[in-house]
């Protein structure tokens, strides 16, 4: 495996051996290491000193179920701190087949912001790197762009691409990847990495692994044995059946039951229309509609969970794939919208623009509170999204996410930490996830350590910091392995599978605590980057209104002690 270093100004590629100290890491952990070693923490996130780094996790490349995720990262233009966002799909797999341990994109063309500056497609294959002109793709949506690139480069390639939002430098812009069916819907969505890619004037990166091969395995017999046990544990786990049938939208009624489903700009934790947008209803609708609709769908080749779905309209024709719980929460209940069809249409539009549905849903909620739309008015929400496509000042404000929208529109009830929107777990009702929002180096992000499944009283402030710490360490570990969080169900049954897989793959002799060791190291590196960027404990705080305004129906505030927040990383 090698480090591929691309210079976007010189349009050159250097293939380098993996430096010592980087070889033990992958995914999110390697990303943090590269950023700390190479990116000045105080740099302009959209300037020439920031780098866009793409790293498959340590276990990527073997179609191990739910373990082919790829991490994208850089300094975030949204949080202005460390950023990692990962995605499924085919990008990670193809990168490893090209022998790429990390792709580091440096610099940017001279004067990238001048009118008419060129756009490029970066094409990577065993023959090296090519920059191909892509001005014809400027302003083109994600779906059309992907279709045109697949026609041009063949349907065997993996693609990471941005939409119009990334081109405009909007800080809610993500980077999209093809799923196993070539749909560009696996999104490294959070924290504005699409804007970082746009600042390098890259519309897309094409990975063509033709002629490549799987990464080497030091002990194939042991790997196969560990893989077999892991797959069995995952298949046998009852949670796998729930996610296969209902996907992440199973969480809609669960969060509502806890009084933690964000509703009308985080003003209530319960939504009267929950039954119409629940995972149970979604499954019924998709089974009834048939056609391209499917309640069970794999985003990565080889996944045995298949938690994804394809939402078809009344004629069965696909509108969007997948609808996830986060989108249902932020663009449904949070906007007072109780129609899955409307949520699907908004989801498709946001995907095509190349934006993060979480931050956009939160931004629209804030806009509704400011009076720009009525809660429940999906047509108006779509009209506001059309402003983003037109690039109007209002559209650009929204496309910078909830924090910017709140600042410009004078709304104080803005659900963000470090400038990034909370996802669909109300921190006043699911307080452990609230601790994660507040303390994660990534900004508010449930994937950094969600505690909703722990069997604790989610309203008790005293137990939440320890709970969040454990979850954050595990998640940073899984993100470093390239494991989907749902792979965790299988790993939790027999945690020794993780060292067995790593030792067989790399010829290492790591022990039973490797997941936690990788997690702690990753968090330490990320926190150090943020410290250098100027972050202090003052940045690890919940918005003040969430400590003071009680959330119905549990009438709770976020009351985890500040000393508990400051102690989360004292392990």
């Amino acid at each position, binding site marked *: 495996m090698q480090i591929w270093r691309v210079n976007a100004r010189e349009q050159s590629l250097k293939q380098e051996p993996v430096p010592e100290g980087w070889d033990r890491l992958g995914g999110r952990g390697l990303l943090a290491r590269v950023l700390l070693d190479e990116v000045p923490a105080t740099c302009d996130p959209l300037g020439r000193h920031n780098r866009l780094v793409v790293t498959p996790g340590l276990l990527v490349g073997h179609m191990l179920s739910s373990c082919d995720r790829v991490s994208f990262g850089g300094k975030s233009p949204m949080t202005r701190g460390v950023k990692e966002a990962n995605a499924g799909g085919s990008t990670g797999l193809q990168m490893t087949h090209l022998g790429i341990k990390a792709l580091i994109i440096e610099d940017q063309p001279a004067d990238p912001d001048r009118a008419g500056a060129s756009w490029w497609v970066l094409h990577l294959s065993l023959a090296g790197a090519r920059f191909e002109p892509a001005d014809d793709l400027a302003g083109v949506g994600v779906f059309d762009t992907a279709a045109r690139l697949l026609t041009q480069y063949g349907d065997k390639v993996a693609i990471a691409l941005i939409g119009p939002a990334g081109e405009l430098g909007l800080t809610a812009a993500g980077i999209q990847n093809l799923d196993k069916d070539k749909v560009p819907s696996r999104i490294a969505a959070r924290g504005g990495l699409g804007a970082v890619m746009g600042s390098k004037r890259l519309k897309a990166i094409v990975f063509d692994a033709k002629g490549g091969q799987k990464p080497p395995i030091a002990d194939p017999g042991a790997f196969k044995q560990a893989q077999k046990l892991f797959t069995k544990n995952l298949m046998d*786990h*009852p*949670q796998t*059946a*729930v996610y296969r*049938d*209902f996907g*992440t939208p*199973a*969480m809609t*009624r*669960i969060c509502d*039951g*806890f*009084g933690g489903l964000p509703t009308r700009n985080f003003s209530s934790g319960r939504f009267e229309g929950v*039954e119409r947008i629940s*995972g*149970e209803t979604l499954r*019924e609708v998709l089974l009834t509609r048939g056609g391209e609709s499917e309640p069970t769908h794999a985003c990565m080749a080889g996944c045995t969970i298949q938690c994804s779905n394809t939402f078809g309209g009344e004629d069965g024709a696909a509108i969007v794939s997948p609808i*996830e*719980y*986060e*989108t249902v929460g932020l663009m449904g209940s949070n906007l007072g919208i109780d129609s899955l069809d409307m949520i699907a249409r908004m989801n498709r539009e946001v995907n095509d623009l190349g934006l993060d549905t979480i931050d956009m849903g939160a931004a629209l909620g804030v806009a509704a509170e400011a009076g720009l739309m009525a809660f429940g008015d999906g047509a108006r929400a779509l009209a506001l999204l059309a402003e983003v496509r037109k690039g109007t000042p209002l559209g650009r404000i929204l496309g910078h996410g909830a924090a910017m929208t709140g600042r410009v529109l004078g709304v104080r009830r803005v659900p963000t930490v470090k400038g990034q929107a909370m*996802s669909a777990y109300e921190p006043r*009702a699911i307080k*452990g*996830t609230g601790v994660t929002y507040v303390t994660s180096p990534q900004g508010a992000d*449930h*994937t950094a*350590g*969600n*505690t*909703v*499944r*722990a*069997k*604790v*009283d*989610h*309203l008790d402030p005293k137990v939440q910091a*320890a*709970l969040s710490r*454990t*979850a954050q*360490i*595990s*998640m940073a570990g899984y993100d470093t392995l390239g494991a989907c*969080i*749902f792979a*965790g*169900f299988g790993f*939790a049954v027999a*945690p020794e599978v993780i060292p067995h897989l790593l030792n067989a793959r790399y010829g290492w002799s790591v022990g039973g*605590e490797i997941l*936690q060791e990788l997690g702690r190291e990753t968090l330490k590196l990320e926190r150090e980057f943020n410290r250098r960027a100027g972050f202090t404990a003052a940045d690890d705080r919940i918005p003040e209104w969430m400590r003071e305004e009680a959330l119905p*129906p*549990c009438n709770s505030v976020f009351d985890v002690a500040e000393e508990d927040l400051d102690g989360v990383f004292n392990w």
Partner: protein
Amino acid sequence: MQVHLHTTLQRRTPEGLQRRVEIALPPVSTLADLLERLAIPPDREAILLVINGRTADPGQALNEGDEIHLIPAISGGAPSDRNPPGISSA
């Protein structure tokens, strides 16, 4: 009391899938009694019990007007490094 049945616990009835049932129990009943009535095994590891928005134990007494959520197949028990909690997400 109102009982919300989640995902795989929904009941198949001639009218279609049922996910909310009204149940009357004798006074001084517990959550375990309710599970027995619904023929759901009280496996603490396989089901999450929520009363009025709070996680509950099978021994918890029930009151008139309680809102109960029965959520199947929730993984992870007491938080520990070997049994990570909080695995759920988009």
